């Protein structure tokens, strides 16, 4: 009886074991039922997934393959958006341009086209395209106008008149915009020539004018001390040392005159850098007043 039961259990185990093996084979991945991952539809799904994950470079590759088989305005718009997002603005502009006519996203693509030139910092092309009616999105006219005026804050062009500039922006932001406008129009630059002349009159004065007070005082002390040493040595008939200190004094005096002009230029570079940084931070925080397009 005991033997019978042990044989029974062994048989049962063998059955389960074979069943288990069969089951794994039944549920295993089979190539016959496999989804074709390279079909246009799969590429589109994968591209959309990558786009939502903000992996725009790889999404653009999937969309490119999909668009070889099917034409879809939304996907073409997404394709252009991918380039825009990864900073390939020229390709983005080219692809947006293809959607200008006979498309539901015509206005949005005109906006994208203008944005691409703006963020490429190719402000001349941007302004030309804004002035061109074919490229101007009527639906987003106020947004593009704002970009148009912002572009003047970001390059060296002559600023437009205040009567045209300020109305383009919302009332709530007018104070900040006004400050940026006047900082750009009347930058607090220091004149390198004035700095050099001041240092010529009194060593170090040009540096003090530029704001480098301690550098200015140091150069005044150094050139003053060398001048004193030169005079003192000439008085005591130490001509060699007198000429040596005269030469050194002249060397540092000339260097200070030169350095004051260079310091003024560096100061001006700092003013420009800080202005650009403040403008970019301000508008980036507000997404350049651009709408979020749902598509």
């Amino acid at each position, binding site marked *: 009886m005991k033997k019978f039961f*042990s044989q029974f*259990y062994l048989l*049962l*185990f063998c059955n*389960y*074991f074979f069943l*288990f093996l069969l089951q*794994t084979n039944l549920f295993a*991945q089979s190539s016959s039922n496999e989804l074709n991952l390279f079909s246009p539809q799969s590429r589109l799904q994968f591209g959309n*997934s*990558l786009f939502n*994950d*903000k*992996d725009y*470079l790889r999404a653009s590759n999937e969309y490119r393959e999909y668009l070889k088989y099917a034409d879809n305005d939304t996907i073409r718009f997404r394709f252009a958006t991918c380039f825009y997002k*990864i*900073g390939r603005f020229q390709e983005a502009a080219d692809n947006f341009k293809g959607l200008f006519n006979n498309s539901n996203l015509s206005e949005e693509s005109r906006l994208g086209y203008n944005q691409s030139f703006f963020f490429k910092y190719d402000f001349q092309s941007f302004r030309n395209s804004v002035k061109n009616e074919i490229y101007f999105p009527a639906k987003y006219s106020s947004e593009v106008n704002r970009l148009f005026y912002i572009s003047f804050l970001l390059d060296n062009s002559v600023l437009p008149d205040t009567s045209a500039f300020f109305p383009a922006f919302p009332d709530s932001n007018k104070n900040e915009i006004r400050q940026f406008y006047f900082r750009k129009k009347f930058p607090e630059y220091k004149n*390198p020539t004035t700095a050099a002349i001041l240092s010529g009159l009194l060593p170090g004065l040009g540096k003090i004018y530029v704001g*480098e007070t*301690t*550098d200015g005082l*140091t*150069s005044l002390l*150094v050139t003053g001390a060398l001048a004193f040493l030169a005079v003192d040595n000439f008085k005591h008939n130490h001509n060699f040392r007198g000429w040596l200190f005269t030469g050194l004094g002249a*060397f*540092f005096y*000339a*260097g*200070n005159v*030169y*350095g004051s*002009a*260079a310091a003024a*230029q*560096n100061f*001006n*570079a*700092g003013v*420009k*850098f800080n202005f650009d940084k403040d403008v970019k931070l301000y508008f980036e925080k507000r997404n350049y007043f651009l709408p979020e397009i749902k598509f």
Partner: protein
Amino acid sequence: MTKFLFTTFFLLIVCKNYYAQTDWVRWDAEVIPYKIGDTTDRFKANENRNSGAGIISFLRNTYGFFISDLDGDNCPFYPSCSNFFVQSVAEVGLIKGSLMFSDRFIRDMNLFKSKNHYPIHKSGKYFDPPINYTLVQEKIYYSSPGKVSD
């Protein structure tokens, strides 16, 4: 025996699930750095650009061998004053380069210089490249004071 068989059977089922393919775990989007970093020292001028730079370079090497290497790396600036002199002369010639060096030497003598005036190089020194003193506005590489610059 029975327990052993059931345990084995249970383990086999569990093992199958452990090693199963899990397609529903999404791939994470890889953060791809699209820009290739600048690997060259863009501030360093070719020291053999002109004969003046060759002479000053020889003097700098002599000074380095006999004095600086023994005295230690004491200059608070990057590039050091001696290298600044060589690079200035290589960039703009002997006369203008000497004026740039003279200005730098006075700034080095300033006891109150601080990170409020200069950006910080990754070596921890004040970053002060000669390119900022050539009087060519377009060449100036501005970096905020106190900020670590490469």
